[in-house]
């Protein structure tokens, strides 16, 4: 009777495994979800943010030390933001992502030049950039042609700001 005892044990085991699924007893299913879509960089970042810390560590452990330190630092800054700050930054990033890749690179290069300016000049340029961003294209053009703009900023600063402004939607 070994075979029948073994069969009975298998059946009981199968029965016990069905217990967790009892929570899901359901009428016939609707169609399943669509095929999985690509995760955008923001989605991936959000997943990293919402991961349990131990799982985030597992992701970071795969990276070389220098790269890990940089990503970890920026990630922590992102995690430490308020919900409103994150939402605002994501919105700006989505706008930036709409730019063609070559224009995104131009923007990054211009930002690099911006960061090479002395801190006090960076401050003035930042204010001006934020002002330009709020304007319509026509208002921006007017501002870039204005006497005040030419008076406040040196030629290389005007070039950085002017080209950044042209990239804005």
């Amino acid at each position, binding site marked *: 009777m070994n075979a029948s005892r073994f069969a009975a044990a298998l059946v009981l085991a199968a029965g016990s495994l069905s217990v967790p699924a009892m929570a899901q007893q359901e009428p016939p299913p609707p169609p399943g979800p669509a095929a999985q879509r690509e995760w955008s960089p923001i989605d991936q970042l959000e997943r990293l943010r919402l991961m349990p810390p131990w799982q985030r560590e597992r992701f970071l452990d795969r990276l070389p030390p220098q790269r890990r330190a940089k990503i970890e630092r920026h990630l922590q800054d992102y995690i430490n933001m308020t919900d409103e700050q994150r939402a605002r*930054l994501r919105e700006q990033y989505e706008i930036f992502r709409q730019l063609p890749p070559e224009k995104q690179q131009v923007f990054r290069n211009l930002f690099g030049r911006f960061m090479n300016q002395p801190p006090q000049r960076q401050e003035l340029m930042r204010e001006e950039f934020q002002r330009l961003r709020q304007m319509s294209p026509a208002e921006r053009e007017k501002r870039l042609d204005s006497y005040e703009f030419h008076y406040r900023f040196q030629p290389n600063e005007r070039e950085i700001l002017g080209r950044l402004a042209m990239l804005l939607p």
Partner: protein
Amino acid sequence: MHCPTTTGNEAEVLVAYTSGTMTPAEQEAFELHMAGCAGCRQLAAAQKTVWSALDAWTLPPVSDEFDRSLHARIAEEARLPWWKRQWGGFSFSWKPAIPVAVACAALAGAFLLHVPAIDNAPATLPAVQTQKIDADQVERALDDMDMLNQLDAPAPAPARTPEGS
């Protein structure tokens, strides 16, 4: 519109009206009816009071500790031996187990009549795989967001000069 109290569906009409799930046409018809029906007006007013009272019962967001405790429980669960994970920690009624036991007995009987060739390899759960996050994409996104954040940062507070200087 017939008075809902005479058609027997006053409850459904009242709830639909106060919860705002009526169509505009239905709402208009019911309000027109209420203008001439004191009973329905009274019921609607009482239901609106209940709805507003329930609206007032607001709760704060869940504490940050919730997720940490949950993850600790999940981790603890993962450390249990498989037989304890299967049987322990569940509190469920015995009622659904009775038809399962009957089905098991019926299957056991079928097996006793005919024993098929059985693969002795134990069932294994699929290996847990973490969805791969693209480090390059994440790094680029973080760099770009840092760049945008720096261009967006507010001006720092001016340095305070010492008094008397």
